[in-house]
């Protein structure tokens, strides 16, 4: 138990300045994506990848998740898994909403005449 305490307190401190510089560089890269990449899908995927990398850097090094027990990472990853599930469940709804968007009005007008 005492040894574990020491192991947690004495882990080699990551180079925080390097992480900060890396995060800034990645932010600048993100800003360059919309003007330079014209294809919507490519630009979108690049931005999402860059954002996920930045979020991982913050969680792993600033929040020390890399040096903690795996159980803590499982706790941190649970909401991410649930959010991915939520997005997958929302996807079929999105396509149907867009399809019924335009013809909604004429049916509403013609209905009282039929009765």
């Amino acid at each position, binding site marked *: *138990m005492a040894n*574990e*305490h020491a192991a*947690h*307190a004495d882990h080699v*401190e990551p180079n*925080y*300045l390097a*992480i*900060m510089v890396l*995060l*800034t560089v990645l*932010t600048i890269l*993100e*800003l360059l*994506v*919309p003007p330079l990449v014209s294809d919507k899908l490519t630009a*979108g995927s690049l*931005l*999402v990848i*860059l*954002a996920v990398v*930045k*979020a991982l850097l*913050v*969680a792993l090094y*600033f*929040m020390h998740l890399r040096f*903690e*027990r795996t*159980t*803590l990472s499982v*706790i*941190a990853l*649970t*909401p*991410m898994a*649930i*959010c991915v599930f*939520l*997005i997958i469940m*929302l996807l079929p*709804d*999105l396509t149907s*909403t*867009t399809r019924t*968007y335009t013809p909604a009005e004429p049916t509403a007008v013609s209905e009282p005449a039929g009765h």
Partner: protein
Amino acid sequence: MSEAVVDSHAPVQQPAESPVTPESWGKLGMWVFLAGDAMSFGGLLAGYGAMRASSPDWPNPLDSLGIQLTAFMTFLLIVSSFTMVKALSAAKHSDLPNFRKYLLLTIIGGAIFLGLQAYEWTHLTQVGMTMSGNPWGAPLFGTTFYILTGFHGCHVFGGVVYLTCVLFAGMNGKFLGKNSSPVEIVGLYWHFVDLVWILVFTFVYLL
């Protein structure tokens, strides 16, 4: 008196399982809270995505929102996260002046962020973007923007108050050395707020 001495030497009762965070239970508590908070933000972001995907006339955020200012705000939060880890590192090494200095810098970074957000919101409302409409297209653009950035801004405000409380409580060296756990816990919250802003910045401003 003698009884107390005997007690302190008695074998400590071993818990049935070893704690996930041996340093303090508060740290585990903060992680569980952050997991719940991540689901709030995840729900809001997923809802934003759903509304955006089903609105054909969604405005291009790059044309309507000021990217330079928010890019600077992102940089500010990254730097304040850096000063936060430096404050924790100073607290662990019992370096009181640096602990105070870096924690104060973190608080100032958060306060400037809030000021810039207030400036941005004022500008956007003057241009005509409100919760119910905007000059560029789908009214939900304004609704989701204010809800998402507002919910995050509330977290930054809460973080600045929390950090200030920790600074005042630790002013005289209460959180140095082995007692630095409260600094680590406030740091976890602050980095989470930074992490969420990284995602909000990408999904609301850049995509």
